C-alpha cells in the first residue's frame, strides 16, 4: 500500500512528469491554503493514491478511472465557515481526453448547471466537477446549505487557478 500525505502530492505529480505519461507540465499543489479562498479552511491531511491503489479510496469506482488513464488522485477535506464540510478530489489523468471521458460519464440532473470554469464545469446542488487539461476536480459537500453553490464555485475557482 502506498499512502502518502502532505508534500507527497508534489512527489506524485513530479513522478508523472518524469515517467513521461503525458502530463504537459508539472502541477503544483492544487489545494488552496486555509483562507486563500474566503471562508474555506483546508483540513490538515492530504491523501494521495496512484492507479495501483486507487481502489483503497474509491473501491470499484477505481476501474472507471483506470480505464480512462488515471495517474493518481489527491484528496483533502475542507470546511466552509466552520461548518459546511466538503471533500476535494483532484484526479490527474494521462491526457485531457481521459478527464473528458470521466466528466462526460456523469448523466445530467434536473438541477445541474454548466459553469464557465476550466475546459468544462458542472454545478450540482451539493457538488462541483470540472476539468482542465488532464486534471479532473470533484468537490463534494456532505450536506445541503444555503449559499452552498456560490461557496463551492469559489473554492473551485481557487483550485482552478492553481492548475
Amino acid at each position: 500500500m502506498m499512502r502518502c500525505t502532505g508534500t507527497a502530492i508534489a512527489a506524485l505529480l513530479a513522478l508523472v512528469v518524469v515517467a513521461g505519461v503525458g502530463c504537459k507540465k508539472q502541477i503544483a499543489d492544487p489545494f488552496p491554503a486555509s483562507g486563500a479562498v474566503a471562508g474555506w479552511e483546508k483540513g490538515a491531511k492530504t491523501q494521495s493514491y496512484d492507479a495501483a491503489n486507487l481502489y483503497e479510496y474509491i473501491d470499484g469506482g477505481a476501474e472507471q478511472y483506470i480505464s480512462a488513464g488515471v495517474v493518481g488522485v489527491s484528496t483533502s477535506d475542507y470546511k466552509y465557515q466552520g461548518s459546511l464540510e466538503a471533500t476535494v478530489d483532484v484526479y490527474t489523468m494521462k491526457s485531457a481526453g481521459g478527464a473528458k471521458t470521466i466528466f462526460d460519464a456523469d448523466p445530467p440532473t434536473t438541477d445541474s448547471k454548466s459553469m464557465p470554469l476550466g475546459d468544462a464545469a458542472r454545478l450540482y446542488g451539493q457538488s462541483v466537477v470540472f476539468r482542465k487539461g488532464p486534471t479532473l476536480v470533484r468537490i463534494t459537500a456532505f450536506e445541503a446549505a444555503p449559499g452552498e453553490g456560490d461557496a463551492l464555485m469559489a473554492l473551485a475557482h481557487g483550485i482552478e487557478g492553481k492548475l
Partner: protein
Amino acid sequence: MQNRREFVKDLVAGAAVLGAGRKVAWSQGKAGEKSKVVIVRDAKLRTPGPAPDEKRVTAMLDHAMQTYFSAQNPQQPWKQLVKPGQVVSLKMNAMGGRAIAPSVALVAAICERLQQAGIKAGDITVWDRGSRDLESAGFKLSDAAGAVRYVGSDTAGYEDAAVSYGSVTTKLSKILTRSDLVINMPVLKNHNIVGVTMAMKNMYGVINNPSTMHGTACNPYIADLNMIPQIRAKVRFVIGDLKTGVYEGGPSYRPEYSWNEDGLIVGEDRVAIDTISAGMVERKRVEKGLSTLDQKGTPMTYLATAADAQHKLGTNDLARIALIEQRIA
C-alpha cells in the same frame, strides 16, 4: 413505543411470517421457509444538521429488531442474537464518508443494546478495512482497554494463512477471525461494476486483496467470498443503514445522484437483503429516467450465483422473501 403509527405492508403472508426466518442464519433455511427482511422508515429522521436524530435512530433500530425477532421489548432481540461473553464486531461500509456510511448514532445505539445484552464494551469492535474510512465517516479511532474499539483492518492486520473458496484466495482480517459474531452494516449504493453494493459486497472490506476480485462484474467472486467458512459462519446478521441511497455514480458518495430513504433494513439472509436493495436502486433509477442496471451493463449476476445450488447463501427469489415494511410517523 409512543407517538408511533405503524403501516405494515407485508408483501407476502401477513403477520404469520413475523416469527419466520429467525433460524435461517447462514443457509436458506428449511424448505418452504421464507427469508424475512424488515425495513423501517422514519421521515423525521433527519435534523437540520448533518447527523440524524439520535433518539429517532434508536427508536427505528428497536422497532426493526423487535419486528424481526417478534420481541416485546428493545433488549430481547439482542439476547437472541448474542450471548454474554462473546466478542462482537460491527463491519461498517464507511468508504464513502459520513454522508453515505452507517451513522454514528446508529452504531452507538447498537453498541448500547449489545452491552445491555451482556457484551462487554471491550469485546465490541467497530471496524472497516481502513482506519481512514472510519475517521471520514465520523468515528474517532480508539483502542482503549475496556471501551468499544474503533479500528481499521489496516491497523489490526490480516491473518498470515490464506483461505480459499472457488475463485477466491485471500487473507482475512484479524478482527473478523477473532469475532464470534460480525454484524454486517452496509449502506445502499450503486456500484459501477456490480450494479448495487450492499451486504455481500461489503465483505470485500474484510480481506486483504479486494482489488483482485472486480473482474467479470465481481462474479463469482462475491458469492465465493461469502462462502469462506469464517465469513459465512460469523457474519450472520445484517443491519443496513438506509438513511441515504446512491442510485448512480457509486460507490463513492455522489450527492447529485442520492436520495433520502431514511430507513433501516435488517435480516439474516444476505442474498435476500441484496435482492431487495437492488430493487430499491432500480426503482429510483427508473424514477430519475436512467437506464436499468442491466441496460447500463452492470447486471447483478452475483445474486443468482449466491443463491444457486452450489452456494445456497440465501434466496434471490422475491416469492421466497417475506418483506415487512413499516413506517414510523
